[in-house]
């Protein structure tokens, strides 16, 4: 069963990748990368059970969930403000 879940997750990740490549807007790509990272978290958890070392794998899954969120926020910020450091938007010129 767990192997089937892994295969299904891989298929879903492939579909997310297609969406990330096709776009068309930058928001589609960010959305695709965000759901891709959620699926990665699930995949790592399932792999932990498959290998029998779920304690170790779950630490990685937890970290991946956190980092995935930070990545989404960071990419969003770059695409919106054109810079990582600003605390408020200065202009809306950098959007695609």
């Amino acid at each position, binding site marked *: 069963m767990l192997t089937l879940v892994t295969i299904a997750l891989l298929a879903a990740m492939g579909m997310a990748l297609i969406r990330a490549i096709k776009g068309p807007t930058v928001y*589609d790509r960010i959305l695709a990368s965000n759901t891709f990272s959620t699926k990665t978290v699930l995949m790592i958890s*399932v792999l932990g059970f498959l290998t029998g070392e779920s304690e170790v794998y779950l630490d990685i899954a937890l970290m991946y969930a956190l980092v995935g969120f930070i990545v989404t926020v960071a990419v969003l910020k770059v695409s919106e403000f054109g810079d990582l450091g600003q605390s408020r938007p200065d202009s809306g010129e950098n959007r695609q």
Partner: protein
Amino acid sequence: MSQALDMLSVLLLFFGVLFILVGSIGLLRMPDVFTRMHAAGITDTIGAAAIILGLMLVAGWTIVLIKLLIVLLFLMLLNPTACHALARAAVHGIRSPWQGESEQQQ
């Protein structure tokens, strides 16, 4: 008892996989970024929760259970936040959400 738990776990994993696949198909089929977000929402909420719950049932009373619970709570807290931030940015960036075939022709 443990057999019933196993059955329930397989059932949850099955529905999780089903929702994840349907959500991914929706991600490809939907017409614009907002509707795609709804499709991705299926994967990120119900699909993820079902799979983690299914794993929790086979984990038993160990530290793995606690870690799975933490992962679940985190996904349920962070995913909608990322989605909301993305939707908010997309509203300002795109301005015209898809409202059906007739309007898209214009």
